[in-house]
């Protein structure tokens, strides 16, 4: 393996790293979706209870189970599902009567829009504020820190409810009722505007504690880096303080934030569930919740698989971010621990 730059080992290292990541992702998705399927199957009750209704005879219920293939033993049913899933056929939702893959993809996109916009917003707000709070003393820094502690104490459930109240009171923003994102791509400017208006409440609720976390971490890291000798040296040589801060200090100080990106994806997913329920955002969390309640086992498994993909993607993103800000890691990536 030799490329134009003549760095054979770096290439194989990256390849090996990617292979490991991919293997981990596949494993995660397989374990999580299988566990979800088995768990839902073992749970008391099944979809027929809701579908056929209370008035149905035992015979009708049995016929329905037979039709849906729910009468088979767990092992057979699982093996059948797993064999299909390997060919990327995740079955049909019992509740909606639609293929799980399409249903999940549509909702996962909505969740991804919400989560990524929130992540971007949190980073854009939290990072600069953290640099400012970490590099200065005095009123500005104290104000930012107080705001951060307040925001940290506003979990998404609380902030979402308060924001919905505010939106309902003032009438400035919709309190929910986002039905689908599709028109946004097809409907041109008004559709985008509509999407943006619907995004405000959930995104702020989701991003608030996140921005505070990023701000606090960044402030801590910047304050620590400011004490390094190279900073005093640069200042002594007459490099402008602003340049030292935004060029010299920021780069090493951004590492802790980059390191938590992978974990933030997990909390984004957990947080977005709450936000989706409160603001009725048609995302993965609500779909999974409905599927769990009505024992729609293929749909539950599909949602879990999508969640696994999302988490694996977050881990990858975090590693890339880390490698981008820390040149020491680039060579070592994938080298194993």
């Amino acid at each position: 393996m030799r490329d134009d730059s003549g760095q054979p080992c770096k290439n194989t290292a990256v390849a090996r790293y990617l292979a490991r990541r991919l293997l981990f992702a596949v494993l995660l998705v397989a374990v999580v979706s299988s566990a979800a399927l088995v768990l839902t199957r073992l749970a008391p009750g099944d979809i027929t209870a809701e579908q056929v209704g209370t008035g149905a005879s035992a015979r009708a219920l049995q016929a329905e189970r037979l039709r849906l293939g729910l009468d088979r033993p767990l092992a057979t049913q699982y093996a059948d599902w797993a064999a299909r899933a390997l060919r990327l056929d995740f079955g049909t939702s019992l509740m909606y009567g639609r293929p799980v893959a399409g249903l999940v993809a549509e909702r996962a996109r909505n969740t991804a829009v919400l989560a990524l916009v929130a992540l971007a917003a949190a980073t854009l707000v939290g990072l600069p504020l953290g640099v400012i709070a970490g590099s200065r003393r005095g009123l500005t820094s104290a104000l930012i820190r107080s705001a951060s502690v307040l925001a940290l104490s506003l979990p998404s459930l609380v902030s979402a409810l308060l924001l919905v109240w505010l939106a309902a009171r003032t009438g400035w923003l919709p309190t929910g009722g986002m039905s689908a994102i599709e028109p946004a791509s097809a409907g041109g400017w008004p559709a985008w505007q509509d999407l943006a208006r619907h995004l405000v409440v959930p995104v702020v609720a989701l991003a608030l504690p996140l921005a505070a976390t990023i701000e606090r971490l960044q402030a801590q890291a910047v304050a620590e880096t400011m004490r390094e000798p190279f900073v005093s040296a640069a200042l002594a040589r007459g490099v402008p303080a602003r340049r030292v801060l935004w060029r010299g200090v920021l780069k090493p100080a951004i590492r802790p934030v980059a390191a938590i990106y992978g974990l933030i994806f997990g909390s984004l997913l957990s947080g977005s569930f709450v936000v989706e329920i409160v603001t009725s955002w048609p995302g993965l969390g609500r779909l999974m919740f409905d599927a769990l309640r009505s024992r729609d086992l293929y749909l539950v498994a599909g949602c879990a698989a999508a969640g696994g993909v999302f988490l694996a993607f977050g881990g990858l993103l975090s590693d890339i971010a880390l490698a981008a800000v820390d040149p020491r890691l680039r060579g070592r990536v994938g080298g194993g621990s």
Partner: protein
Amino acid sequence: MRRAGWALLVAVGIAALGAPVLTPHSPSERFDAGVYAPPMPVRVVDADGRWRAPFVYPVRLVNRLERRYEEDRSQRMPLVWLSGGTLAGVAGDAPSPWLPLGGDGFGRDVFARLVYGARLSLSVALLATLGALLAGTLVGGLAGAGGGVVDDLLMRFSDFILVLPAMYVVLALRAAMPLVLTTPAVFVLVTGLMAAVGWPLVARGVRAIVAAERERDYAQAALSLGMGRTRLLVRHLLPAARGFLATQATLLLPGFILAEATLSYVGLGFPDPTASWGTMLQEAANVAAIADAPWTLAPAIAIFAVVLAVNLIVQAPAIQSLSGRSTPPGGTAV
């Protein structure tokens, strides 16, 4: 700052413990004239601007259809102190019941539900925290002291649980149980589930501390003098993790309060007449109810107060928890 946090926490604790003294109403008592009734604040100045002993104005339903209430300024309900086993109340023949924080959709006293709910919400969270700490200490101690394959397996397992979004795990496991359960059953189940997802971080920390302590001279000396491994672990190695456990407790507690609230909010927590902060928030699931009766959001404010108090005491805990979890790239644990 730290002191303010403690004061806030103690105040909430007193409110929870002293619930029967603080309110004459039961959390499930329904008042016909209390459906979405507005809060009735204590006043000391009456409509004519004269100072009075603390009193409240009764509220009157002026429009049953729109549930519109009006303060009845023509009569005052003076507060009666320390009667009937409660701190303050209004006389039994008062024109309307006193609902300090208003009424919910069933005409129940929001204040009574808030203080009684605090008992349930806080005790679930406290017990789950205790459970998670115990389980984490057990696993971490075993892994740290045992080493080898045991260590490897236990840590891999806890790393795997750490990767999963905790809320979904609790939700999925809870949803896999019968959806409708009695209050005691929910209490045990929810406490157990939260402890079951909360332990891995504790275990990792305890393992690191125990493994480091084990190599110290005093531990080696104790071993060579013939001290048993278990005794060494319990008497000398685990106490080194005390400070770490205290920090972990402050991280877990707010998360568990929130988890209970979320579960109950989506209807997988405590069944309806039971008062907990989560079941109270269910009232607020309806946007129209939030807009017209914002006092149903009182438990959200209570949760905010508790989380803020903990944050003030430990100063930015989320940061420690997140950076404590981070793993170096390439060396990702799972």
